[in-house]
Every structure is written in C-alpha cells, then in structure tokens.
C-alpha cells in the first residue's frame, strides 16, 4: 500500500455564490485498523481562509503548524491577513522546499479573496498548484470524489434559499418570507428548498467515502460566507 494511503483521508472544497464550502472525512486509520473517528483535517488560517490537508496524518499536523507559524509572522509584519492566492503561493513554496524529501500531504485551500470572491485550489505534495473555478478534491477517495462532484456540482449554489432572491443573508425563514410577501401557506414551499451548497458537498463527500474503505466515519463540513462560518458534522455509515 502506498504511503499516501497509510492513514486514509478525503477532502473536498466547492465554490458557491459568494461563499465556499470545505469538507473532510473524520477517520484516522493505521492501514486497515481505525484508531480515531474525530480526526481534524480542515484548519483555519484566518476568518476567511481555510486549508484542508489529506495524506499522511503526521505531515498533515506538522505542515499545518508550519503554515500557521508563517501566517502569524506575516500578520505581525504586514498588519493584515494573507489573501488566499498569496497563501496558496506560500504553501506551494513551502512544499517545493522539500522537493527531494516531501511532506506527504495534498492540500486543499479555500478562501474568500478581495471583494469576497471565493478562491479554491489544490496542489500535489511538491507544490504544483491547480486552480479551479468549481471544486477541488484530494485524498484516498479522490477518484470517487471527482466523479461525484462532477455530476452533482452546479455553479452559483447558495447557502440559503434567500440568497438566490438577493435578500440579506442570515434572515430567518419567516423574515425572509415576509420580505418577499409570501403567504403563510406557501412558506412550507420555501422550507423545502435545501441549502444547495451544503447538500451538494455533503452528498458528494458521503457517497464517495462510502466507496472507499480507508475514509469515512462521518464528515465535517464548513460553510463560509462573508458574514459567518457554519460548522456541521455529518453522520454516515460508520465503517
């Protein structure tokens, strides 16, 4: 078995309308034995920038610590947060420094850049950046994830139905319905509308990890919009 498959992992990030979602599985294994079901693979760099790391778990943790270190120094020197594109360039440089003895990690970077335009990218373990407009995947379940995302993804998905109507993010269902003058009877129709982006990324993740014996044991999804961040845990087949 390859060293990348030693611990097992699945990470995916998707772009929505003025928002993004990043999700990962929660299994930590040693070959076929599962030893933890709450392993964190997605880390916050700053409020609008997250990095998901798949691959060898020890390198996931060390690389995250190194990147946070670099970012904190940058914040102190430049008195500002790093833009996602800048951070991606930094990660690429850090990985290439170890070209002949690499970190066995494939990062997935997702953030809101200038004017809150979503940015996602992934790279291989030696820093070859791959920018995407729709979704990026990495981990042992990546082939399934590619298939699932390709078929389920559509552009401009929203985190709340009301975003599609251009209303302020964060209103309750009732407030939103009142804003658009919907009668009480019809409110149920609005409640049926799912949060598209969350549903899509969750379904893509769960169906892919179900096909991969090395990842699974639940999922962890983060939805990030310009105003807030939502963290949700998914329950899936626990095996």
């Amino acid at each position, binding site marked *: 078995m390859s060293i990348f498959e030693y611990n097992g992992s699945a990470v995916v990030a998707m772009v929505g309308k003025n928002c993004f979602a990043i999700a990962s599985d929660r299994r930590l294994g040693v070959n076929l034995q599962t030893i933890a079901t709450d392993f964190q693979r997605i880390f916050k760099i700053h409020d609008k920038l997250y990095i998901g790391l798949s691959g060898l778990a020890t390198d996931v943790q060390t690389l995250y610590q190194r990147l946070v270190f670099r970012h904190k120094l940058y914040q102190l020197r430049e008195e500002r947060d*790093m833009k996602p594109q800048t951070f991606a360039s*930094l990660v690429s440089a850090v990985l290439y420094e170890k070209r002949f003895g690499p970190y066995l990690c494939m990062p997935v970077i997702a953030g809101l850049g200038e004017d809150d335009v979503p940015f996602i990218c992934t790279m291989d373990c030696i820093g070859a950046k791959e920018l995407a407009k729709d979704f990026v995947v990495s981990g042992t379940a990546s082939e399934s994830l590619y298939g699932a995302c390709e078929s389920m993804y559509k552009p401009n998905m929203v985190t709340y139905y009301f975003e599609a109507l251009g209303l302020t993010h964060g209103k309750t269902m009732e407030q939103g319905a009142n804003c658009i003058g919907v009668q009480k009877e019809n409110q149920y129709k609005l409640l049926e509308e799912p949060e598209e982006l969350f549903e899509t990324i969750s379904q893509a993740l769960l169906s892919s990890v179900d096909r991969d014996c090395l990842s699974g044991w639940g999922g962890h999804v983060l939805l990030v919009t310009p105003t807030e961040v939502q963290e949700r845990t998914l329950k899936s087949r626990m095996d």
Partner: protein
Amino acid sequence: MGDSQYSFSLTTFSPTGKLVQIEHALTAVGSGQTSLGIKAANGVVIATEKKLPSILVDETSVQKIQLMTTNIGVVYSGMGPDSRVLVRKSRKQAQQYFRLYKEPIPVTQLVRETAAVMQEFTQSGGVRPFGVSLLVAGYDDNGPQLYQVDPSGSYFSWKASAMGKNVSNAKTFLEKRYTDDMELDDAVHTAILTLKEGFQGQISGKNIEIGIVGADRKFRVLTPAEIDDYLAEVE
C-alpha cells in the same frame, strides 16, 4: 574629549551612549549632494542635484535615481557606490518576496528589510556603516509613501523631506510650501523650487534628476526634456 577614543571602533559604544562611527556616517551624508522627496495626494516625487565633477563627464551615463521594483524608486545622499550595494540587495529581497508570495512587496516591508541590512553593518565586525541616507518613494495598496532610511538603520515616513548639503534651508522651504492635498504636478514644481534655492549655477534638465510614481504604480525617471518643460513652467 572622551568620544574620540571610541571613534575608531564601530562596535563599541562611547561613554555618551553614541556609536561615533554612525555619527561620522551621517556627516558623510550631510556633505553629499542635496536630495529631497515630496509625497503628494496622488503620487510621490523624488529629486536630486546631479553635479558632475567636470563638463567632460557624459551626464547621460550617470543615473542617481534608481528603481527597486517597478513601483518603488530610491534616491540617495552620500556615497554613490554604497547606495548601489543597497539597491542591489533590496532588489533581490523584493524579488524573493515576490517568488514566495507572488505578490509585489509592500513599500513598508521593503524599507524595513533595507533598513535591517543597514543595521547589520552597524553591529558586525570588520565592516563600516553605509555612508548614504536613502529616500524611498513608492505607490502600493496603501497609497503613495515616502521613507527616509539612515546609516544607523532607522527609518521614518515623511510627507516631505530633504537630505545632504543645505538640508535645513530645504526643509524650511518645504515646511512652508507643503500642503496635504498637493497633486503630483504641484509636487514636482515644489521640488524644483526647493532644489533651486540652494543651487549654485544655472539649473537645467541636465544637472538635476527627478523621479515620480503616480497612481499608475509605475516609477519612472523624467527625461531631461521633461525636466526642462517643468522648469519652464516654474519660471
């Protein structure tokens, strides 16, 4: 005087708490040709006298104002060769920053790294401080900026400043003439008038040098013809 016994060693403090070598470096700067910088609302201008030792020198080959990056330029007062070393190091640092972050270096960061180099040479063995003060002018995401860096490694942000010979007259003149809402063109005129104050001889496009950077973020040195145009406007 107690100080003179300590004046030969850079790395030893004198009893009065000074590093006398740095004081001497500042004297070297103070006897260099006048240079000045003015920060306008929409750009920065830096200028310097370009007095050549003889009329036989090819003035087109001499350039005192140099680029550190496409949007940051620098002028010096003091020893020319020392400034070239600093410009070379700063250019390399700016490119290293870009290689790491794929983003142009902010002016404050470049100034800080240049100042760190100058400070290194005040605390090492076998070296002497740089005999130049630099005026760094740039335009980045935080708007137009003007910094002065001294041989000790300290740096200051200025709205308008002068260095070299005749510095006190120039600064007094600038204090009177400076306004916060000056446009770049007005700043160029003011710079020319300030240089004219202490200039010996006839001022022309061939014996002064002016560099500007505006909102387009492209630092450039004006040609002698352009300087002559500004001079004509000033008169």
